[in-house]
Structure formats: structure tokens, C-alpha cells
């Protein structure tokens, strides 16, 4: 029960949560499968997996308590029956979804209910009308990045707040809207009176098209420019239209709007700590970038 007394005690503590890092990362299902079925040493996968220890060390050194994981559901928890543009998972537990193969054999995802509810409240009052999900299975969009960040632990070493974005049904939110939501999330996290270290991950992409006669499109130049611009010219990424994403980066490349939520949750000035770009994992250009706010 929250009474006036405990609210005041909270404020006296003055140890607020803070965002300590941002990650942009693809969530290719085959990367999860390679890990699950012991194929990471195969020559097909070594160029990617051999690069990951450095990223994992950076994440581990950040000592995050919570990861806000921005991803899209791929017809798993949601379908065309109900299409929330943004849905935040407020539960304490999220089960891996059955996407047609049976659920992935990875640990359950533990949530951070109090922080998630706080973000929902803060963002909605800040005029970002999030859908609140108290029950939501999480698919590869959420669990593959966890594998990339943490490998194969018994339990995920962080609590996870899943933030689901519709990018399948047109129109998804614009890149600019995503960036602005990221800023609102930064404000929300920094007003949560608990000493928590929070990482925001924007996932999906990079260039890929799974569908149609144009299936297999990859645009390396686009991807590398997108990564570069995240650092010091993000206005270009943020103002990019849906049409340009789809035409240049493939119909599923539009997932990259979700990276803007991560970018918006960081300061204007950021430093790049790690980057890996690899073509191809399955049908997709794989990218991961790790960012920290620049210390003045």
C-alpha cells in the first residue's frame, strides 16, 4: 500500500534509476536457433558469434539491473485481432511463446512490474498512450537479443521490461514518434526512486526482406550509414519515412524504427563502445551497436 509517508521516504532517498547504456541489435530467429542447437562453432556462424564476447563483456561491466527491451511481436502474443502500436509488459513473468515450433528452450523472462507500471504512468501522462499488457508471451523478438547479450545462463541475469511495437501492420509508428517515446522513457526512468541501472535495447533489422519476389534484399550501405548516424547525425534516421525504410532496407527493414526508441532514451551526445555488422545470418543483415552517454 502506498501512503503519503512512504512516498515521502522514497523522495528522501533521492537515488533515482538511471539509463546506463543503449543497444541496437537484430533479433534474427536463426541466431537463437544456432545457440539453442549448439551450432555457434559452425563456420556459418563463427563470424557472428566469435564477435559477441566483447559485447557481452561490455554489457556485463555495465552491471544492468533492468533491460527495457524494445521489439516487435511476430504474430505470437498479438495477431491481427488486436494491434497495439506500443504495448508495455507490466507482469513479473513472461513465458517464451510457441511460434509454431514449440516454445524456445530458454529461461522464462522475469519482469520488473513496479518500474514498468511507473513507465506506463509517466509516459501516458506525458501523452504517449501505451497499451498495458499484464499477460504476454514473448517471442524470438525478445528472447534472441537476450541470447546475444547473455549467452546461455540458467536464468537471465537481469529483469526485462518488454516493450512491443507494431511494425507489421502498416502504418507502424514513425521513426520520429519512436525517438520521442524514447525521450519520454528516459524521463520516466529517471523519476523512478530506486537505485537501478537500466539498459534500453532497440531491436530488429537491419536491412532485410523476407517476402515476395524481392526476398533477400540487403543494403549494406544503408545499414552502415544508419549505424554511423546513430552516433552524431541521428536527425537523418529520425526523420526517415516509412517508404524510405521499406524501399531501401526491405519491407522488414522497417523494424529499425524501434532502434529510435533506444536512441531517444539516451542523451544527445553518445559514445560508441562496440559494433558488429555481418551479412548474412539467415535472410538478414545482422547488426549490433552498443552506446553510452558521453560523460562531460
Amino acid at each position, binding site marked *: 500500500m502506498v501512503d503519503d509517508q512512504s512516498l515521502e521516504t522514497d523522495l528522501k532517498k533521492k537515488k533515482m534509476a538511471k539509463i546506463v547504456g543503449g543497444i541496437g541489435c537484430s533479433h534474427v530467429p536463426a541466431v537463437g536457433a544456432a545457440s539453442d542447437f549448439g551450432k555457434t562453432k559452425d563456420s556459418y556462424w563463427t563470424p557472428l558469434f566469435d564477435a559477441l564476447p566483447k559485447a557481452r563483456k561490455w554489457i556485463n561491466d555495465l552491471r544492468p539491473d533492468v533491460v527495457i527491451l524494445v521489439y516487435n511481436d511476430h*504474430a505470437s502474443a498479438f495477431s491481427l485481432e488486436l494491434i497495439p502500436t506500443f504495448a508495455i509488459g507490466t507482469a513479473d513473468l513472461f513465458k517464451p511463446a510457441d511460434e509454431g515450433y514449440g516454445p524456445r528452450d530458454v529461461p522464462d523472462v522475469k519482469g520488473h512490474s513496479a518500474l514498468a507500471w511507473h513507465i506506463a504512468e509517466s509516459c501516458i501522462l506525458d501523452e504517449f498512450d501505451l497499451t498495458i499488457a499484464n499477460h504476454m508471451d514473448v517471442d524470438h523478438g525478445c528472447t534472441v537479443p537476450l541470447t546475444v547479450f547473455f549467452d546461455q545462463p540458467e536464468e537471465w541475469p537481469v529483469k526485462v521490461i518488454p516493450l512491443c511495437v507494431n511494425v507489421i501492420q502498416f502504418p507502424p509508428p514513425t521513426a520520429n514518434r519512436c525517438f520521442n517515446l524514447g525521450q519520454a522513457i528516459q524521463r520516466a526512468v529517471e523519476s523512478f526512486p530506486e537505485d537501478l541501472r537500466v539498459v534500453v535495447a532497440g531491436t530488429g533489422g537491419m536491412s532485410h526482406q523476407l517476402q515476395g*519476389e*524481392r526476398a533477400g534484399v*540487403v543494403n549494406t550501405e544503408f545499414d552502415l550509414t544508419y549505424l554511423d548516424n546513430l552516433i552524431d547525425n541521428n536527425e537523418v534516421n529520425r526523420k526517415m519515412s516509412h517508404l524510405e525504410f521499406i524501399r*531501401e532496407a526491405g519491407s522488414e527493414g522497417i523494424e529499425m524504427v524501434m532502434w529510435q526508441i533506444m536512441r531517444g532514451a539516451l542523451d544527445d551526445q553518445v559514445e560508441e563502445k562496440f559494433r558488429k555488422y555481418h551479412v548474412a545470418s539467415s535472410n538478414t543483415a545482422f547488426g549490433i551497436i552498443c552506446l553510452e552517454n558521453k560523460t562531460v
Partner: protein
Amino acid sequence: MTYKEKVALRKAFNDIPGTYVLTPEHSQKGYGLNMFCMSLNKEENRAKFRENEAEYLKGYKLTDEQRDAILSRDYLRCLQLGGNIYYVFKIAIFDRRSMQYVGGKMSGVTEEEFRDMMLSGGRSIIGNRSKEEKNG
């Protein structure tokens, strides 16, 4: 958004070769097909579909063309009839087919040829941005 802008955007989407954007129009057309695919997330439904495909499809609102496309595993036709790849891919998962098999089938090459194309950097964007550029 003005009506003019809406029309211009549809035209621009249509100008991207071999690409079926899940617009509101597309989604209305494909609702039954996509929701059938969605049902395959559940093992009990997969078992029923395995037992008798045509019978199982009677539970969904589908056109004859959509039904034929599903039964003949014509993924491209499914997309053209309102399907979205994440939904339609569930039929391929049911058949234990990979995304590269599906990509190859939709673009007229074998799974191996598709895999090789991806390994050598993917399908080039050059010549694939617009129908005009493609047909040049």
C-alpha cells in the same frame, strides 16, 4: 494526411518490385487467411490441420483462391491474396521448411541458390528500388 498523400503513398508502395506491404486494404483482404495461419501457433490446431487440411480450413473465412494457395503451399500467391509473411511463414514452419526455402520459392530459385545469394551479400538493392529501375 490528405487523401492525395494517401494515394501517393499507395502508388509508391506499388512501385517497389516484389513487395506486398500490409496496408489496411491488404489486411482486410487477408484477415481470414492470416488468422488461419495464426491458429497454427497452437499444437492442438496443428494436429487437426495435419489430420485433414481441407476440413480444418472450413473453420476460416477464406476465398477459394486463398484456400487453393494454402493447400498448394503457394506462398507468393498467399501474399498476393492478403497474406503477410510472418503469418504465412507459419504454414512453412508447420511443414518444417526454412525461411530460406520460402524466400527461394517466392523468388523462383532453390533453397541452396537462395542461401548462396545471402552468403554472397544478399540480393542487391541496385535495380530493386522501383519497378522502373528494375525494368529500366
